[in-house]
């Protein structure tokens, strides 16, 4: 154009223009609708700069390629985000009512439903596992599994996971209402007992040993999650716990978002398969919600102490959004019923459950 050097305008393709619009859409959703802004805004910007031609950003040695390689291809960022999550997580509601941990297991059903469905549609094992894990409603877990098993669909699964997580208040309530009666939604649960500090310290240690011995490939996620939690609960390393909760988590989120965005080039993202990934992602999410609610109903048939089946929906993780949704749906049936703390039990159990499911996929397919 200027006769001396080439400009991007001359080589800009239609696919890249569409990707620029998708990047703008993600930024718009983050700013205007406040949909998971912490992650969708960096992803949106990453999409835009990764799809501008002639920058060399995503080529060998380019800035985005370096962030992607060291952060995601080496699987460095997602486990460290789990460290921050652990430092932010309070397991007390789970320890106060341990049986709700089983709801966190039941809500992983959707992962396997979507996995099987994706295989039927012709996806490979690695791709199907990455699509299925969206049902765990856990962004870092989805990114961890996808970047190991099928990095070429990383952008689609990551955006699907985070988008659906922000759409929890829209996706979950109709399923919860369809699977429960008014009477069930009104069940009042016994208030939770106070949990001793010693129990809160012992839990991450015991959980680390048991889970990693049973599912060794879950070690990076579970190990970091429980280490972060130990920093928090020990009470003697406040500075470290605060760093894990804030500065470390924020830095990693910036790099995670931009690296995911960088992986979304036009030729990889703009395929019919991306639409299928989004479609199966929502199936995974819905099936996980249904799995949690139905298992809670099953527990009521065998347990002496009744649980409100709505709290099963919180087993999909998406902390704390899905627990808040449970509280809201529960209060519509009975304004004096406070389910939030009861829902936090399956909610944090869901984080552990999806990390275990990820470990199993990596162990069997990876």
């Amino acid at each position, binding site marked *: 154009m200027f006769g001396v050097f080439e400009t991007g305008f001359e080589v800009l393709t239609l696919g890249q223009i569409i990707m620029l619009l998708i990047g703008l859409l993600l930024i718009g959703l983050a700013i205007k609708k406040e949909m998971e802004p912490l992650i969708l805004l960096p992803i949106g910007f990453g999409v835009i700069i990764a799809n501008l031609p002639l920058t060399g950003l995503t080529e060998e040695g380019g800035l985005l390629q370096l962030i992607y390689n060291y952060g995601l291809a080496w699987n460095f960022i997602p486990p460290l985000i789990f460290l921050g999550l652990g430092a932010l997580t309070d397991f007390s509601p*789970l*320890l106060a009512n*341990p*049986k709700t*941990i*089983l709801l*966190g*297991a*039941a809500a*992983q*059903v959707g*992962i*396997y439903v979507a*996995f*099987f469905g994706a*295989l039927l549609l012709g996806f490979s*094992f690695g791709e199907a*596992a990455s699509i299925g894990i969206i049902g765990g409603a856990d962004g870092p877990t989805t990114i961890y599994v996808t970047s190991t098993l099928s990095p070429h669909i990383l952008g689609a699964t990551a955006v699907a996971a985070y988008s659906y997580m922000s759409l929890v208040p829209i996706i979950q309530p109709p399923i919860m209402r369809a699977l429960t009666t008014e009477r069930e939604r009104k069940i009042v649960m016994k208030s939770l007992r106070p949990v*001793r500090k*010693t*129990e809160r310290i*012992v*839990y991450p240690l*015991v*959980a680390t040993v*048991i*889970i990693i011995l*049973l*599912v060794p490939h879950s070690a990076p996620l579970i190990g970091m999650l429980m280490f972060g939690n130990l920093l928090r609960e020990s009470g003697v390393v406040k500075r470290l716990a605060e760093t894990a909760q804030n500065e470390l988590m924020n830095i990693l989120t910036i790099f995670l978002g931009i690296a995911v965005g960088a992986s979304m080039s036009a030729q990889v993202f703009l395929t019919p398969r991306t639409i299928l990934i989004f479609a199966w992602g929502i199936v995974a999410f819905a099936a996980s919600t249904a799995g949690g609610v139905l298992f809670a109903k099953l527990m009521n048939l065998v347990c002496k102490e009744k649980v409100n089946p709505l709290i099963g929906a919180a087993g999909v993780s998406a902390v704390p959004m899905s627990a808040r949704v449970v509280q809201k749906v529960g209060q519509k049936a009975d304004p004096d019923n406070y389910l939030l703390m009861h829902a936090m039990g399956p909610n944090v*159990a869901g984080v*552990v*459950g999806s990390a*275990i*499911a990820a470990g*199993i*996929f990596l162990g*069997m*397919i990876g």
Partner: protein
Amino acid sequence: MDWNFALRIMSSGLSAVFITLFLLYLVMKAVEKIFSKLEAPAAPPELEAGEVVVDMKEIAAITGAIYAYLEGKEKTPSSSALDRR
């Protein structure tokens, strides 16, 4: 497509999630029981020869009977509580 492998992943995956979390549930219950026993209130000490156990309810009953006598509500301090003494 190896469907046997797919079914194996699904069945072993889901059962592994349940078994691991169920095991964790059992351990959490055990930990809860251990700590509640460790922190349970101590049993009353055994009495030695010559030691007296004071029942505050009984003392209150006796005091009430004496007050009633002093106020003239009863002619003699012969309430059941005093009789028993």
